[in-house]
């Protein structure tokens, strides 16, 4: 093996410029592959992070507006979800549906504690299950619980931002009272805001908020967890069935898609995963095609090399080189060149990814309403590096194959002819 490397080193050294140019094309190919995949991963990770904010197997139903006439009623009627709909969700679909909750928002509230106040906040009446569905992280105290619901307690879970604004001098807000539109609520917990709209919510027991603000048994949005909907088909069937039942509660056409809106996080995830898969495949294809031009370059250069070295191969064969040893020499040479320069390209790609991670990976796009990270950890894993290495070895072998066969076929008498 050592001899082969010595030989390769000798030939590479003899043709520095040629070696450098070939190496560059391979390195560039691998660099592009790694860089693209890293950037793709950044996008994918950012998307994943945003979908990960919700429980995957959960669904939210909103009241909408009918879009077609049904049973004597015209289109364009507003639909509000009511207690009856919650009961339907819980009883009719008991096999699939887990915990059912609802969110009743009462917005435009001014919070105050002593002299400090915050306007434009929202009292959000929720069930205890909301914490799981929207993955709310409680950093202090507790979330709304069943006893709060049962006893219709006036308790509140506020965001960190609200806590900071209302009690700027620090100290735990838990146990203190916050005034909202003239009513006093006892703070029982603090949750981590995400810098988005969520930070302006004050979570209160759904029963309390509805008792104070709701009319006509309106419940706001219904949210629930579900189980056993594995495939897209099952999800679609369930959605159609569920929609039909809710629509009938409101005398809307069973197939009216606008009367009740459904937001199925599970389907979101399936579609997201599919989109990400396509993106990843596309990036691999682009990267591999870039690499292909490098491989063709190597193959081309190797062909020229073999031509130049015809006499040398003739000599080698005359003194006892078997065709196989010549074949092996050229293929290994090709593999070593591709892998070596490919590795350089890979390191550059990883460095570029890390640079991207350190710069735009940290920046957030602030839309005013919410902040989002465009790239999250735009790097490739060890698995991709191993795959890329395999690709390089394979590419090197492919590139060397044709030239090597040509070299192995050199006939010593032809090569040794005096010229």
């Amino acid at each position: 093996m050592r001899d082969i490397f010595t030989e390769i080193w000798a030939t590479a050294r003899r043709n520095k410029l040629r070696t450098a140019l070939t190496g560059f094309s391979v390195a560039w190919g691998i660099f592009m592959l790694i860089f693209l995949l890293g950037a793709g991963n950044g996008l994918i990770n950012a998307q994943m992070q945003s979908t990960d904010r919700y429980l995957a197997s959960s669904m939210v139903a909103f009241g909408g507006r009918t879009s077609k006439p049904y049973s004597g009623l015209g289109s364009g009627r507003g639909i509000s979800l009511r207690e009856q709909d919650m009961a339907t969700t819980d009883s009719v679909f008991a096999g699939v549906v887990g915990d059912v909750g609802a969110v009743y928002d009462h917005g435009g509230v001014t919070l105050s504690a002593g002299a400090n106040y915050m306007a434009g906040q929202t009292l959000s009446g929720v069930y205890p299950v909301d914490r799981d569905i929207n993955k709310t992280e409680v950093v202090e105290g507790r979330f709304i619980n069943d006893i709060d619901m049962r006893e219709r307690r006036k308790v509140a879970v506020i965001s960190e931002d609200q806590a900071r604004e209302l009690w700027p001098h620090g100290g735990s807000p838990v146990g203190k009272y916050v005034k909202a539109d003239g009513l006093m609520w006892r703070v029982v917990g603090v949750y981590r805001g995400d810098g988005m709209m969520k930070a302006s919510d004050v979570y209160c027991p759904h029963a309390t908020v509805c008792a104070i603000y709701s009319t006509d048994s309106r419940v706001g949005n219904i949210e629930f967890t579900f189980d056993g909907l594995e495939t897209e088909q099952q999800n679609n069937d369930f959605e159609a069935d569920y929609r039909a039942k809710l629509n009938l509660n409101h005398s809307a056409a069973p197939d009216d898609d606008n009367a009740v809106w459904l937001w199925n996080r599970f389907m979101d995830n399936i579609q997201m995963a599919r989109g990400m898969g396509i993106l990843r495949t596309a990036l691999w294809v682009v990267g591999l095609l870039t690499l292909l031009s490098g491989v063709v370059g190597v193959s081309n250069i190797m062909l020229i090399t073999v031509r130049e070295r015809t006499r040398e191969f003739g000599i080698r064969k005359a003194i006892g080189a078997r065709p196989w040893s010549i074949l092996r020499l050229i293929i290994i040479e090709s593999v070593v060149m591709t892998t070596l320069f490919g590795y350089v390209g890979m390191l550059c790609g990883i460095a570029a990814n890390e640079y991207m991670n350190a710069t735009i990976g940290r920046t957030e796009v602030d839309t005013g309403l919410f902040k989002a990270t465009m790239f999250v950890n735009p790097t490739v894993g060890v698995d991709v590096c191993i795959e890329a290495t395999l690709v390089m070895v394979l590419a090197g072998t492919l590139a060397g194959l044709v030239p090597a066969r040509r070299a192995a076929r050199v006939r010593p008498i032809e090569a040794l002819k005096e010229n």
Partner: protein
Amino acid sequence: MVIHIKDLNKTYQGAQPLHVLKGINLDIERGEFVSIMGASGSGKSTLLNILGILDNYDTGEYRLGGELIWNLSERRAAEYRNRMIGFVFQSFNLISFKTAVENVELPLYYQGVGRRERRRRAMDYLDRLGLAAWATHYPGEMSGGQRQRVAIARALITRPELILADEPTGALDSKTSVEVMQLLKELNEQQGMTIVVVTHESGVANETNRIVHIRDGVIGLIEDNHDHHASPFGAGGLMK
């Protein structure tokens, strides 16, 4: 007997088939120093290629060290060349990016001999040919005579049955030519090496013990030549 050739025929197929060897019969004993002489186009190069297992023949029989050389696979041919034959070429045919010692080692590399052992043996042969000091030089840094001695060391290193020298002095000046022929002669006399030299120069042929004249694809005359000073070409080592 190292070489036994019986009724050997070779035709180059082409638009006009060319019958180059027309029934060659030749026996060469171990320890002989033979030259094959002929003008260009006489078939001597073809004969050399067949002797060196670089080319095939059509009919007849060729035995090298008792082994029938017929229809060998490339792999077998390479093995026979490697173990039984040492080549010395007119243009030396050293590999330019390898040092002298690396060139000499090469046949052993293809035998699978280990690196240290290879190096030791190659240095040994270079030393015998007085080139130890030049071991790490590249062929481009050496004179023609030195290069041919490196090539001879490379031919000797596998201890072959036979040294085949194709116009070994063709690219050398007369003084160096004499030295190289002297070297081959010594190898033959002192080590009993069988050597076949192909040449068109009678001065070179005159240094050998038997001269095989080949003309138009047949062997014309085989003359014994033990008195190397009888011929005017040999006088004073003047060969050209």
